[in-house]
């Protein structure tokens, strides 16, 4: 293979290093207005009056917009249809959008928003998810404050625990985490003469924006067009949320008849946009003396916030994977997403799995210790293999690299030696070292719960000069989609990689291809591109063959590589062939389509083929802990990832390294402090992101257990790397200090207290 498996340079890197790549706030237009959002300051409030009289006095004020001005339906058509674009009677979280103002300048818009008076009546609220599930709790959603419930039931869990010689149990909790993309949310909306609107902006999922804008404006889909601009990070935070931001911009544009720009500042992004769900997991594992797992039982609760957004799907993914990547005959997992009067939680890389994996990987370690087994050997003994069944009863027929990944990290990290040596390691008295492991799997693409969206389209057009335009329905958000898609197209067509241009995603060019989430772009868009390339490839190759024949190379078979077609006596380049195709009046543009193979999920039993395939990761983390301060430094992470086929090794490593650092932020330093429904630290001064000094040393191993239905065997990668490192690091901390921290982020104070307490107990 020519382009597959090569670390070609990112197609968008040059424009980005030059500062020439244009993000949404870099655009400005003649006559453009700016919008700003008026937000409720209370966790729950009845809206009595919205008064723009003072705002109108702000020079440059153009108009105010409330729920009453929404021409279509004031409910976001997303999963549960419960979130109004603008709060009407009741605002359900501090930061919820109540009104918009449009003005001649950004400053005027913000001044006018600040001058808008909200007459609100504060109502009783509930901000703790376990409280919210009680009968007496104030109502957030429905009758019971539950957005969704799932059960996964396999075998007989009571019998499984009877058969167990050792049982471990515990309660594990995780906090919020912000996606903290460096570019805040932003959109520009243009009113169109046909009564519709065109939107440009920062987003992962243009089709979600399309759905929302059409609903809010009450207009036909063919009057809405959504185009993605260079997007400064997403991580799930730009999955659904841009639909809300975009709808606000579209409302303002249509109601004023002028282009409108809406860019969030960091604070409002922090208080109003989605974030990773806090979780509460009660978990129990049983195993036989020889280490074979017999049973797993879990209760898994997510704190969803005030509106459902994507919570039902996040919960489902977390639930399906909650038993871990192990062969367990008896499983019972029950889960629910609780509504609370706080900002809605939603998609964040890993999508419910970092939460449930923190619990299962922490407890698997404890059970290994009870059995006096090495935690890595214990995982290896139980790890899923080809032919095994997952917790949902899905039989793994192929492409399962869990054992391979664990063995690779064991050997590459020098696990056995360090596991034996580190407890005795001493430096300066208080510093201690430990090493820990975690395993995870990740269902690639949307799975059974999102199966109706699991399709993708592509358009490939070969130009007369031999350059190629590729349009896909998924987006480039930094993960390298354009580069990988370019490689796939170049490989299929035998075109030079540099000839491929993947366009900014535009809903008018490619039909609804579902969201850019769930590590699905390489698989779904990659396959759609291959589907489009197939007839083009045939025409190109046949034409090349005939051209070579004319040049006197009739007898020998043609070879095709690096954009050249050759026989012993002659050679033609891709551009020449493309030109010849045009002269022969051949069709040089094709639409491609791919729909995912069937998946299933029985809502009564939680059994079924939940996902089309899985990626597998193993992480070994090494930590150094200062017992006197609790300060913990992750010094090295060795990780191995089975992603089917590596399309671009450098880009794959970048995804893994970035995922690991986000995971370590989740484990140790990123903490949203929320008091009575208010975010106390909505800024980068008080919400700490990992910086250069926090990056560990990396040892990254890429494994290929090809998935036959994937493009060149590829599965998906982006999310699997963020799932394991947090529990691996906490397991390393356990190894270093002998204490189990059951909550993340494990801040230095908590570590210091736990270590001190643990040391006292030992004495």
């Amino acid at each position, binding site marked *: 293979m020519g382009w597959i498996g090569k670390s070609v340079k990112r197609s968008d890197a040059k424009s980005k290093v*030059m500062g020439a790549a244009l993000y949404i*706030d870099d655009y400005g237009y003649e006559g453009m207005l700016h919008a700003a959002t008026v937000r409720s300051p209370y966790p729950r409030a009845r809206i009595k009056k919205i008064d723009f009289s003072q705002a109108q006095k702000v020079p440059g004020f153009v108009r105010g917009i409330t729920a009453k001005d929404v021409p279509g339906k004031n409910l976001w058509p997303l999963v549960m249809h419960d979130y109004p674009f603008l709060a009407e009677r009741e605002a359900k979280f501090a930061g919820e959008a109540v009104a918009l103002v449009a003005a*001649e300048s950004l400053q005027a818009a913000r001044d006018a928003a600040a001058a808008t008076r909200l007459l609100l009546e504060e109502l009783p609220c509930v901000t703790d998810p376990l409280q919210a599930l009680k009968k007496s709790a104030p109502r957030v959603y429905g009758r019971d404050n539950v957005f969704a419930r799932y059960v996964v039931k396999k075998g007989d869990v009571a019998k499984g625990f009877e058969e167990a010689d050792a049982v471990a149990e515990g309660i594990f909790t995780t906090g919020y985490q912000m996606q903290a993309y460096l570019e805040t949310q932003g959109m520009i909306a243009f009113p169109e003469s046909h009564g519709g609107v065109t939107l440009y902006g920062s987003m992962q999922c243009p089709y979600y924006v399309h759905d929302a804008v059409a609903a809010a404006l009450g207009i036909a889909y063919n009057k809405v067009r959504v185009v993605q601009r260079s997007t400064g990070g997403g991580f799930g935070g730009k999955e659904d949320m841009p639909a809300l931001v975009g709808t606000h911009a579209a409302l303002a544009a249509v109601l004023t008849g002028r282009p409108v720009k809406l860019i969030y500042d960091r604070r409002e992004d922090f208080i109003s946009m989605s974030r990773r769900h806090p979780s509460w997991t009660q978990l129990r594992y049983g195993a036989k003396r020889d280490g074979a797992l017999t049973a797993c039982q879990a209760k898994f609760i997510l704190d969803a916030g005030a509106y459902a957004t994507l919570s039902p799907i996040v919960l489902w993914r977390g639930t399906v994977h909650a038993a871990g990547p192990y062969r367990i005959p008896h499983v019972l997992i029950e889960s629910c997403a609780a509504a609370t009067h706080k900002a809605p939680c939603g998609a964040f890389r890993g999508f419910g799995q970092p939460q449930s994996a923190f619990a299962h990987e922490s407890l698997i370690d404890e059970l290994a210790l009870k059995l006096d087994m090495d935690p890595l050997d214990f995982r290896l003994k139980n790890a899923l293999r080809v032919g095994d069944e997952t917790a949902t009863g899905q039989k793994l027929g192929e492409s399962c690299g869990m054992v391979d990944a664990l063995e690779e990290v064991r050997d590459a990290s020098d696990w056995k030696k360090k596991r034996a040596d580190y407890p005795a390691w001493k430096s300066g008295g208080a510093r201690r070292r430990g090493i820990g492991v975690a395993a995870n799997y990740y269902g690639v693409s949307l799975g059974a719960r999102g199966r109706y969206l699991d399709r993708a389209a592509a358009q490939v057009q070969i130009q007369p000069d031999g350059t190629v335009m590729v349009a896909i329905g998924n987006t480039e958000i*930094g993960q390298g989609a354009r580069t990988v898609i370019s490689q796939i197209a170049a490989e299929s067509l035998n075109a030079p990689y540099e000839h491929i241009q993947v366009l900014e995603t535009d809903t008018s060019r490619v039909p609804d291809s579902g969201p850019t989430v769930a590590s699905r772009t390489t698989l779904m868009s990659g396959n759609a591109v291959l589907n489009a390339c197939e007839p083009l490839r045939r025409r190109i190759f046949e034409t090349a063959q005939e051209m070579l024949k004319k040049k006197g190379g009739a007898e020998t078979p043609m070879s095709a590589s690096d954009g050249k077609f050759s026989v012993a006596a002659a050679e033609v380049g891709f551009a020449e062939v493309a030109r010849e195709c045009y002269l022969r009046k051949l069709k040089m543009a094709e639409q491609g389509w791919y729909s995912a193979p069937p998946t299933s999920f029985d809502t009564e039993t939680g059994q079924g083929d939940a996902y089309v395939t899985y990626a597998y990761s193993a992480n070994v983390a090494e930590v150094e802990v200062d017992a006197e301060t609790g300060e913990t430094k992750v010094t090295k992470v060795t990780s191995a990832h089975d992603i089917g086929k590596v399309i671009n090794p450098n880009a794959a490593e970048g995804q893994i390294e970035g995922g690991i650092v986000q995971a370590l932020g989740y484990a140790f330093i990123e903490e949203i402090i929320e008091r009575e429904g208010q975010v106390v630290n909505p*800024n*980068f001064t008080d919400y700490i992101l990992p910086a250069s000094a926090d*990056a560990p040393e990396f040892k990254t191993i890429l494994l290929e257990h090809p998935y036959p239905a994937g493009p060149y065997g590829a599965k998906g990668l982006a999310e699997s790397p963020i799932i394991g490192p947090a529990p691996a690091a906490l397991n390393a901390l356990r190894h270093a200090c002998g204490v189990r921290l059951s909550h993340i982020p494990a801040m230095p104070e908590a570590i210091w207290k736990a270590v001190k307490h643990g040391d006292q107990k030992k004495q």
Partner: protein
Amino acid sequence: MAIKKNNNFIKLAALRCRVNGRAVQKMVETGKRLLDFLRSDLRLTGTKEGCGDGECGACTVLLDGRPVNACMVMALQAAGRSVVTIEGISPDPRILHPLQQGFIDQGGVQCGFCIPGMIMSCAALLEKNPQADLEAIKAGMSGNLCRCTGYEKIFRAVEQARRELELKNAQR
């Protein structure tokens, strides 16, 4: 001087400075941040706003050769001084600065939003410490947040640029 704009009196003052080597003379609002002056008045949009609090470093530019967060500096503070932005980092716009090339070659770019600021900080770092080792690089760019890469490939990019610049200096 004060002018009436949208019925509001805004104080304006003359700003003379050099931006990317070129003399600039403009009337600016006294309360305007250097970041907005660069982005809105001069249309130099390569400099990004990530937080507005001086925490993320996405708006880093060089002010008399030293890295500053352009969101924390008033435009008028640049009076009589020299500002360099990502658009001016390479003396010849047709040739990439070794740092820019390093970020491309090593895979140091993902979403790209932090990159212009990152490159400006690293340029200042290598100017000050041409032999910067990994520890010095880590420390020198600790004010620039990247949410995508995990930093590893950025370290490699800066190391490549350092070697390139060392080579160039040796040839001189």
